[in-house]
């Protein structure tokens, strides 16, 4: 029968909007507003999965994110969502869900065999087995891995989009139950910027789980009253209510992470690709009010994990919020008063109550009276000792306790399909604890409650151990007022609603952490953590083996380490461990509440910053041309630089050879815009440059340029570049592409921190200038044609100088500098004219066969000249002397890194030094990263290494291979033979040379 367990009325589901969904291939119906759990329960389905280790049947146990057991796989292929809590997933038309961790089916699971052998696979089992011989673990591990895990990760890429967003507010209220609603309203009325966040689909919290027939607030049903408050709150301009949003992490300075489900409740076909699946909120709140409620504790007794055993409060939620009967014949097992209301509500809803079993001798007499009126059997000072029914509870055995609190003989059976259990309540202090607040153990409620705050927050309501509705409303309102006042708002006290409640609220209880068992301890299987399959026996074993720290016991048994983070398990586990050690609970301590409060989609944490947005791709003003002309690009940091410009049918190497040849034989052009540029200005600019570069800058004349090396204080080369003197007090500095940001930061640091007395200002101008570098014998010719007012003839415009000039009437700065050893002109023009000038250069250069070249040819060209690339020929361990650039280090005067150069290890003669390598076979191109050794054969390992090849190319201009390498004592090995390793081949014989191959070629290369 369709929805046989659906009540005729009640609940906040929309009965006019039926929804068809499936579980394990079978189709069911529910209503919009149902969770998967409520909809399955409406159809009489309790068992939904198998446990982690023993593959025992697992059912729906809770009604929210605390449920340790009711987790399923949602959807298929790319839309699959493993490990989804049925009690949180809202149903939608066409939703498909599947049981996890079972094969071949939920009912007949082969791995359930584990359960039969459970006696042999206790906690710590793997520590004691498969230790050897070597390789034995490799043999078993794959099987163990396959048995573990829960759901299946879809292999397809996630089609969903996610995003981050940020908000600041005065008061953030977390949890829209009675306390949270009152708090938010009080703060909003005071004029504060308020955010109220609610994990479920609608505000109301525990109010929606109350019997609307017996509870009225200001004369309205709970749901009606909540609606009124919600409407008022939404009317405040600066108040925002976020539903389906869970505060998962409380970080420093009142920074809270929220995960909002935007689309997960919508049918797949209507999910818009313009709407994200989930949104992650970063909230910075001046004050936080925690109204996160309390979590009911299950009872720890033999067989307590069977489907059909449910938290008493969850039963009420299904009954009233969803209009679902969680069973037809129920028993209640408790040690506290609040669970009795579940029995009464179930009974009033027409569920037959087999009995109320209370471990106490004397519960509240009013409750006894109410039970009597309803004709409910009550077993006092009794416990449930055994459950029958494998896939769903069929009966429970109830036994009396004797005077010593042990199970007495004699038993009676309670036939039931639902067992509501309650071991009392634990304030939900997870976020408070994440905020670094100190917890206080409260004997009265047998639980931890907030003790001392660390951040600007306060807890109100059940999360603060205030359980009655009145105290929640009162404390919530007061917290809202206080929070608003702390933000400087005048906040009048809030009026509380009139409450009419036919059902007296009682929260008396006796904490019984481990329910007395009729069986000896080692035969009792009482589950503490239903998901991780941790039993009391496992906790005993941890104790026996000396894992007595609560953290060791947790890790040894894995208690509380499941996807529910032990929300229902931890308190019981701590108490049981404490008892075993004869300690009080606070003496034992508890484990950390880590973020996130509940699992958060990794895609949502990544947000929109994925794919193309993972990090910016920076492009130059000429990028469009490069792309249109078939450039391949090389990423250099975040920049994309043209790498080669292949022509049709050309291979990479062919392109490279052509570009390299052109730049030396006629005319090449390079987009050098990515070079870092810094404008340096002030009366002390020269002094400043002399301190940050290794060479002298006091005498550089306006109109001239100089190459400089920058070191770290450790004496190692960090960056290099050419700096031009504009006027005596004004310089144009260039850095490497990757060095632009770090150099700027280091220089500002030096000026602001170290040398505030220097009058120098810096401004980054990297992107102000597009830089077009003309290279080759015809570059002067083209430059002459382009420039309106400058004769580029090297005779008048010498190497290492620069001039202001114009092209087409536009101002340009032209630098006669070269990174290739070839005649070159670097033209700097305002970036917005870069593309125009580039196109003009290409057009007018056509007659010289102008050839655009990319970074690869640039690298080759500079290697022909023996110029270094910082980061390629250096790796943070090279001094100027190592690079054979001792000439650039001035003899007197301080500069950054100077003193380190005289440290003993930096002065050693056999340091690795940069040299050229010429292969005996001129056709052979060494591999970059290959190592230099002294012998023609590698010999036994380890092979002594002298250094490695940093740059290596076939040079078309020299007609042979060239390489640069750092080699131990390289400077003293000129002309000497060495060998370079080649995997799988004999080392290649090479001769050590200088690095300026171009110069050598003019003298004739070997």
């Amino acid at each position, binding site marked *: 029968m369709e929805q046989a367990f659906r009540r005729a009325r009640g609940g906040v589901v929309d009965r006019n909007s039926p929804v068809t969904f499936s579980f394990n291939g079978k189709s069911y119906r529910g209503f919009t507003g149902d969770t998967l759990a409520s909809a399955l329960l409406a159809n009489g389905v309790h068992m939904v999965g198998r446990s982690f280790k023993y593959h025992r049947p697992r059912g729906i146990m809770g009604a929210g994110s605390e449920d340790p057991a009711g987790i399923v796989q949602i959807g298929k292929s790319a839309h699959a969502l493993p490990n989804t809590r049925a009690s949180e997933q809202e149903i939608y038309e066409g939703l498909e869900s599947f049981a996890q961790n079972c094969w071949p089916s939920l009912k007949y699971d082969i791995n359930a065999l584990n359960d039969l052998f459970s006696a042999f696979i206790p906690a710590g089992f793997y520590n004691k087995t498969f230790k050897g011989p070597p390789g034995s673990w490799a043999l078993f591990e794959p099987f163990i891995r396959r048995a573990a895990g829960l759901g299946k990760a879809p292999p397809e890429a996630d089609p969903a989009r996610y995003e981050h967003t940020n908000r600041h507010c005065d008061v953030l209220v977390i949890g829209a139950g009675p306390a949270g609603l009152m708090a938010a309203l009080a703060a909003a009325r005071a004029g504060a910027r308020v955010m109220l966040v609610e994990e479920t689909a609608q505000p109301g919290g525990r109010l929606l789980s109350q019997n609307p027939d017996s509870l009225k607030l200001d004369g309205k049903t709970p749901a009606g009253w909540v609606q009124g408050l919600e409407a008022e709150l939404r009317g405040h301009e600066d108040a925002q209510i976020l539903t389906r949003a869970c505060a998962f992490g409380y970080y420093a300075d009142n920074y809270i992470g929220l995960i909002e489900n935007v689309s997960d409740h919508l049918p797949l076909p209507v999910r818009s690709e313009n709407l994200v699946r989930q949104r992650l909120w970063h909230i910075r709140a001046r004050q936080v009010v925690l109204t996160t409620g309390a979590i009911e504790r299950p009872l720890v007794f033999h067989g307590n994990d069977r489907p059909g055993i449910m938290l008493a409060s969850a039963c009420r939620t299904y009954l009233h919020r969803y209009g679902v009967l969680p069973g037809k014949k129920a028993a209640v097992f408790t040690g506290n008063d609040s669970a009795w209301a579940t029995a009464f509500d179930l009974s009033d809803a027409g569920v037959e109550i087999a009995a109320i079993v209370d471990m106490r001798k004397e519960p509240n007499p009013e409750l006894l009276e109410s039970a009597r009126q309803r004709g409910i059997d009550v077993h006092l000072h009794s416990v449930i000792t055994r459950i029958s029914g494998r896939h769903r509870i069929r009966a429970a055995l109830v036994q009396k306790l004797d005077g010593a609190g042990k199970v007495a003989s004699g038993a009676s059976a309670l036939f039931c399909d639902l067992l509501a259990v309650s071991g009392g309540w634990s304030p939900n202090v997870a976020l408070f604890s994440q905020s670094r607040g100190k917890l206080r153990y409260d004997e009265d409620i047998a639980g931890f409650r907030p003790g001392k705050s660390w951040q600007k927050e306060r807890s109100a309501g059940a999360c603060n151990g205030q359980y009655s509705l009145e105290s929640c409303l009162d404390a919530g309102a007061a917290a809202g007022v206080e929070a608003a006042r702390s933000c400087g708002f005048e906040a009048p006290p809030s009026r509380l609603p009139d409450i009419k409640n036919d059902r007296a609220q009682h929260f008396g209880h006796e904490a019984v952490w481990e329910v007395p068992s009729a069986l*000896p301890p080692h035969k009792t299987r009482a589950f503490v953590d239903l998901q991780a399959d941790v039993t009391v026996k496992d906790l005993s074993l941890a104790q026996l083996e000396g894992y007595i720290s609560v953290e060791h016991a947790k890790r040894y048994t894995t208690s509380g380490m499941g996807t529910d983070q032990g929300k229902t398990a931890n308190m019981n586990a701590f108490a049981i461990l404490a008892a075993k050690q004869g300690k009080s609970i606070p003496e034992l301590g508890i484990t950390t509440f880590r973020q996130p409060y509940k699992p958060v989609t990794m895609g949502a944490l990544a947000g929109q910053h994925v794919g193309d947005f993972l990090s910016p791709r920076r492009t130059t003003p000429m990028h469009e041309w490069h792309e249109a002309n078939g450039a391949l690009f090389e990423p250099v940091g975040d920049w994309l630089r043209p790498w080669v410009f292949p022509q049709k049918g050309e291979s990479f190497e062919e392109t490279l050879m052509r570009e390299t040849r052109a730049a030396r034989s006629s005319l090449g052009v390079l987009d050098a815009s990515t070079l870092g540029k810094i404008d340096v200005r002030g009366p002390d600019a020269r002094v400043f440059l002399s301190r940050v570069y290794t060479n002298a800058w006091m005498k550089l004349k306006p109109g001239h340029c100089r190459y400089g090396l920058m070191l770290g204080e450790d004496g190692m080369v960090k960056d290099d570049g050419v700096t031009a003197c504009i006027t005596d007090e004004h310089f144009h500095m260039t850095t490497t592409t990757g060095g632009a940001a770090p150099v700027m930061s280091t220089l500002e640091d030096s000026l602001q921190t170290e040398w505030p007395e220097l009058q120098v200002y810096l401004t980054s101008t990297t992107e102000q200038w597009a830089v077009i570098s003309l290279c080759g014998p015809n570059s002067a010719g083209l430059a002459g044609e382009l420039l309106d007012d400058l004769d580029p003839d090297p005779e008048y415009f010498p190497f290492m100088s620069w001039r202001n000039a114009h092209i087409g009437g536009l101002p340009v700065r032209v630098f006669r500098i070269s990174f290739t050893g070839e005649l070159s002109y670097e033209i700097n023009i305002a970036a917005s004219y870069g593309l125009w000038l580039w196109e003009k250069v290409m057009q007018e250069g056509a007659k010289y066969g102008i050839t655009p070249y990319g970074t690869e040819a640039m690298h080759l060209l500079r290697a022909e000249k023996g110029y270094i690339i910082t980061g390629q020929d250096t790796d943070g361990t090279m001094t100027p002397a190592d690079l054979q650039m001792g000439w650039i280090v001035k003899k007197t005067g301080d500069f950054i890194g100077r003193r380190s150069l005289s440290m003993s290890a930096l002065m050693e003669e056999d340091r690795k030094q940069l040299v050229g390598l010429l292969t005996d076979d001129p056709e052979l191109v060494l591999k970059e990263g290959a190592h230099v050794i002294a012998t023609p054969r590698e010999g036994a390992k380890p092979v002594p290494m002298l250094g490695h090849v940093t740059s290596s190319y076939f040079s078309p201009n020299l007609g042979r291979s060239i390489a640069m390498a750092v080699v131990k004592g390289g400077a003293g090995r000129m002309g000497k033979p060495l060998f370079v390793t080649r995997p799988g081949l004999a080392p290649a014989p090479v001769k050590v040379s200088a690095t300026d191959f171009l110069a050598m070629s003019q003298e004739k290369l070997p």
Partner: protein
Amino acid sequence: MSRYSIFSLLREGLNGQRGWGRAWRQPKPEDAYDVVIIGGGAHGLATAYYLAKEHGISNIAVLEKGWIGGGNSGRNTTIIRSNYLYDESAAIYEHALKKWETLSRELDFNIMMSHRGVLNLAHDEAEARQIKRRIEANRLNGIDSEWLDARQVKEFCPPVNVSPSARYPVLGGSLQRRGGVNRHDAVVWGFARAADALGVDIIQQCEVIAIKTRGGAVTGVETTRGSIKTPKIASVVAGHSSVIASMLDIRLPIQSHPLQALVSEPVKPAIDCVVMSNAVHAYISQSDKGELVIGAGIDHHLGYSQRGGLNVIEHALAAIVELFPSFSRLRMMRQWGGIVDVCPDASPIIGKTRVKGFFINGGWGTGGWKATPGSGHVFAHTIAHDEPHPIAAPFALERFTAGALVAEHGAAAVAH
């Protein structure tokens, strides 16, 4: 120490698991020890174990301020590899890797050493060049290491996205097949149990407050559980090295930073190797329980709060999602932070100090776990002989005054 065997397991299975002995004792501190080791993490316990086993010194106390393995040992992502660039580093990490291979058997405790292979990805030419240089150095040092091109990477690790249009495309990577992961708690417990069996006192909840010296030599420690006399003190307190050293007015070239990690919910096997990416600052493997274990980058500020920013986690996951688009739907289940000691050259400090009898082992940065047995072994030798073990010698503190750094930045997973 009763051995764990198939027979003991069967016996206890039938016996209701009631007959097991304690894995280690809970002794009270004695008045004096031959050696006091500060820090009950894996490195400290390994040091104690090797001192007792190989150097006959068993009158040792390991002092742990909290619970053993509760610092970085319990917080790291357990990646094991030895494919380091420089000879000095390769030597110590390979020394460790050889020991990892047989450690389960030696300790009679399954540390779940899984040699499933470690991939270090290259995302641009510069990185590829650097990695190839390292592979070649590894080969010449006799350490297994090979280059995989993008296609081979995909074959070895199918979930990796090797699309050339990715923001950080995979050009290839190095693979060390002997590398892998193990179980951090098991290593701590295994060393503790074995050291305890050799007579080492493991004293938890015992924090060192001061170090006492006379004439430039240590004489003992003051702890929250009383004074202890000893001629030799070894500090092995990842993250807190400077705190202990400051008790002797020793400054170290170490900065402590938050380093974060996280695990996903458990799922059936989805990735069968370890993947590390330097460029995007993330590393990932899957535990035997099914959780994806993901390491994030370090926070750049100094910090002892064992907490970093959420933004660092978000960056790491953006990188993971980029590399593994199918993991985007999985959920982060737990995040946490540790404190890493970072040296300027990304290499550790192992050795003596100017105070006689005070030895230090720290500064491992993000790379300490994989060195554990090697570190403990050479440190024990150094303590026992008052002279550095040859493998430890290059990592002496003096290298900073000489300028003889072992600059391993490129070899660490996270560039500092």
